[in-house]
């Protein structure tokens, strides 16, 4: 400071010092910028990876859950002609002419099956009728198209067919999202519940969340005491026991699930033991049941809950508990008021990790669960592999994503994500 004051007193303008400071500032700034660029360069690969492998697919998934251009693209004339149709009566000749032209083109481009597949989601069994109508439409040369199309198939004499085409003609449609929460639009456009024999997805969502919660609680009950023991044993014994926790953790999920499959069978070791010891005469229903699903999932998820709790416990100084005891707190009181609150960040992290991983379970319920134990992911898989219904798969994925985010939000409000600690 003194030298600066001196310098300014020497130089009447003081400009030399000002320009020096500005240059210094500039140099500092460019050095900082270089540092930032370097840091960015280090982060960029991961950032790009996340964008390409995570964010873009999720955006596509969300888009496909509501974007369905099959009918609009392949029946453009009919969809345009239906714009002003009031939905009360069978359309007139002009609309039928558009239909005949669209179906003729669809037959030639082999797009009729695609149209049939989409309309079949609304009206069961219509797929083959669309395909045969398209074949017949391709042979038509002159009006009146209305009579000829109705003669080709009775579906054209039914206004639900037309209402369905009009609805499906919208490129942006809530159809799949509604279906994945057991709702649909009736021919008049109002939102109604789907028939009881199709209403399964709300149940499945509740089931998915229920199973995940139960598994999370079980892993906490089983994992907490183990984590405590591990954190407080002498290192040599603790390391040995840690291997027992980590070994299954390092084993493939599929291998562990298959092991449970063998163990839980009707003639498997568990049932044989129970029968040999006279506990039961008939084998218990262990596999293909909710019980088997919960057991296998709890086993697989245990380390995920346990390890964060363990690493938080490792950081808790034993002197806190000793202080609590020396100040007169009983063992239970000291544990509940001093130790447990200190482990909460670990419990929060472990439980959140397990819960969110559980929501996406697919292989384990598929192998050791029964039909009523399958979770949302299983239905996403069957929509893709068996039904080839991408819209439904994406909508179910979107619903699961939104449900997870809501639960995460609630969790954040209750526990606070900043309090979560992995170690």
């Amino acid at each position: 400071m003194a030298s600066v004051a001196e310098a300014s007193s020497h130089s009447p303008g003081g400009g030399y010092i000002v320009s020096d400071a500005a240059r210094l500032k500039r140099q500092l700034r460019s050095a900082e910028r270089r540092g930032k660029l370097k840091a960015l360069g280090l982060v960029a690969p991961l950032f790009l990876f996340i964008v390409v492998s995570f964010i873009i697919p999720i955006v596509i998934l969300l888009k496909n859950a509501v974007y369905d251009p099959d009918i609009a693209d392949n029946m453009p004339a009919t969809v345009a002609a239906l714009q002003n149709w009031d939905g009360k009566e069978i359309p007139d000749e002009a609309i039928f002419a558009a239909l005949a032209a669209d179906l003729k083109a669809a037959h030639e481009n082999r797009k009729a099956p695609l149209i049939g597949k989409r309309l079949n989601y609304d009206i069961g069994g219509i797929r083959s009728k669309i395909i045969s109508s398209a074949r017949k439409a391709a042979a038509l040369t002159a009006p009146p198209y209305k009579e000829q199309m109705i003669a080709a198939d009775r579906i054209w004499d039914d206004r639900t067919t037309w209402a369905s085409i009009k609805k499906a003609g919208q490129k942006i449609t809530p159809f799949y999202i509604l279906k994945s929460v057991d709702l649909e639009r009736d021919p008049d456009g109002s939102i109604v519940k789907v028939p009881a024999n199709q209403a399964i997805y709300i149940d499945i969502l509740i089931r998915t969340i229920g199973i995940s919660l139960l598994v999370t609680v079980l892993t906490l009950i089983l994992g907490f005491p183990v984590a405590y023991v591990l954190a407080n044993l002498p290192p040599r014994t603790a390391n040995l026991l840690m291997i027992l926790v980590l070994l299954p953790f390092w084993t493939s999920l599929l291998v562990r699930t298959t092991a449970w499959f063998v163990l839980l069978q009707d003639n498997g070791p568990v049932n044989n033991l129970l029968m040999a010891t006279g506990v039961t005469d008939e084998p218990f229903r262990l596999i293909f049941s909710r019980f088997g699903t919960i057991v296998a999932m709890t086993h697989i998820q245990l380390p995920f809950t346990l390890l964060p709790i363990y690493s938080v416990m490792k950081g808790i100084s034993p002197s806190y508990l000793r202080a609590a005891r020396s100040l007169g707190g009983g063992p239970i009181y000291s544990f509940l008021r001093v130790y447990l609150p200190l482990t909460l960040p670990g419990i929060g992290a472990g439980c959140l990790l397990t819960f969110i991983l559980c929501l996406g379970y697919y292989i384990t319920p598929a192998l050791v669960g029964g039909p009523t134990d399958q979770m949302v992911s299983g239905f996403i898989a069957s929509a893709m592999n068996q039904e080839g219904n991408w819209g439904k798969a994406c909508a179910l994925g979107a619903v699961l994503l939104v449900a997870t985010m809501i639960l995460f939000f609630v969790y954040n409000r209750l526990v606070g994500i900043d309090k979560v600690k992995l170690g």
Partner: protein
Amino acid sequence: MKRSSWIAAGILLVGGATPVLADDLTIVSWGGAYSESQRKAYYEPYMKQGHKITEEEYNGEIAKIRAMVEANSVTWDVVDVDSQTAMAGCAEGIFEVIDWAKLGYDRANFVGETVSDCSVPTIVYSTVLAYDGSKMNPAPTTVNDLFDLAKFPGKRGLQKNPFVNLEWALIADGVSREDLYKVMATPEGIDRAFKKLDTIKSEVVWWEAGAQPPQMLADGQVVITSAWNGRITGAVKKDNKPFKIMWDHQAFDWDLWGIPKGTPKLDQAYAFLKFASSPPAQADQTNYIAYGPANKDAIPNVNKDVLPDLPTNPDNMSTAIIVDVQFWADNGEQLRERFNAWLAQ
């Protein structure tokens, strides 16, 4: 590309990215004992002629073939399909139309040739009920016994598919064979079938791959199970299992070869089908599995030991259900969806 194609392309990317040899034909079938019989009768002799074959397995999912064709990324060159998939897939245009002149056979010489223009019939098989003869006393004899939990307590194995299960449910509910598909064509008929299935739902273990039923019987996991007849006969002959087939209301069907549309190896696919449909190869397959050859010229050379176990044996045919392929091709997808919903409830 369309939106579904993008996803399909993404999924198939992994499969499509693997390098493929020029003359390497990918053939997809149903796994287990059936694939083994095809390996011995078709693939191995064919490979001895200098060709290469890569085998893959599936459980008959038409959606997988459709996704490939829609994404223009066909990696399956020849697929063994059941009749409803052949028919539905042909109507949708996901299989190549068969040029019988190019194949070099008389189409009329094959049984099941009317199913579709896009397939070459390969075998006659049947979905039957089977049980462990050493454990069941008295033995079940009819489809009614499948639904009789009082007389035959224990778990049942059924295919995780409405196909044949709906038919059997209605037969057991008193519908005659002649009226079967008339009843199934009505919504009430379908409701009735599901209602009948409800009565045993809690006792059913559902199988997906054809190799599972004999395994479930062997493990004692189930007392009765539906199965494809060749798998049961195979377990009896090869592994000396005491399994018995009850031929009552066997559901008689065909398996056919289809060529997914757009395969880059169309000519090689034809060459393979020509070989696999030849009378000697077809007759040879009966040495390994109890399915009837589709090429009628192969019949004189069929392994005589297998004759009593074929679905076409007149003794086994007295109450057989001839599957209505058209019905399943039209309604299969819809019914499978309903069935899956029913399972989940």
